[in-house]
């Protein structure tokens, strides 16, 4: 068994309104920053013991499918690195 960290990034699908990101963008602009757009995402770092990276990725993928993301509104990606 090897120790991995699976990083699961969950973000709203393109086209789904993100009022919190819009509000954050406006606050940055009030501070004088110039920016065209701002997108927010949630990142989960999951430490997993698995035989190999594929197994760790498969497990993290199922975590995203079943809880970390809501497939109706979210896309997600999984990246695995050895710890």
């Amino acid at each position, binding site marked *: 068994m090897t120790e991995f960290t699976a990083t699961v990034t969950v973000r709203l*699908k393109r086209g*789904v*309104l993100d*009022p919190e990101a819009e509000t954050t963008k406006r606050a940055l602009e009030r501070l004088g920053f110039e920016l065209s757009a701002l997108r927010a995402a949630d990142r989960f770092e999951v430490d997993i013991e698995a035989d190999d990276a594929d197994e760790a990725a498969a497990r993290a993928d199922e975590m995203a499918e*079943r*809880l970390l993301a*809501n497939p*109706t*509104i979210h896309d997600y990606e999984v990246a695995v690195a050895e710890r």
Partner: protein
Amino acid sequence: MTVSVVQFGGSNCDRDAVRALRHLGVDAERVWHEDGIPDDTDGIVLPGGFSYGDYLRAGAMAARAPIMADVRAAADSGVPVLGVCNGAQIGSESGLTPGAFTTNASARFQCESVHLRVERADTPWTAAYDAGDVIELPIAHGEGRFEIGDDAYGKLVDDDRVLFRYCDADGAVTDAANPNGSTGNVAGVLGDRETVAVSMPHPERATLPDVAASTDGQGILRAFV
């Protein structure tokens, strides 16, 4: 009929739901989620509140609580199930009903009275109304914007599963009457069965004549009578 009102940690409309149901002559009890759904349950309410502190997403944790397996089994056997507000978020997160409820377009918590157009009257939840009726109920939510995606929304409409839409006092479904940016002004939908429904507006807060400005919510709860 004994209705189980499921109390999760952070539920706060469970007592209101029990009071409202008892006012209508329905035997209703609060059920702590760890105790499971009692065998003699003839109806289930997933009440409003902030279960599990809205961690991850509103309703996400409660939707994966073990009691939801009981709720799903009951729903599949035809027991009427109603999710209100946080209960609606739990219903969609658990897949009992289609779509998702997410952050209001205003990015604010909104606590106000809204008008709803009854889209169909041939369901247990709306039998007390006529299609096209305008009813008035309170909302109190920060994550009530109904999202479902274009294709799934088309199917939702084709399948006639929209129960209520936000509208103005005359029943016109307009952007101005949409409090939270919901797709199609959708405020409540049906699950796979017509006996399963969710609503972001609160019928139990519009049932008791002594405390409510409107008693229009009684009709929805009459599904349990």
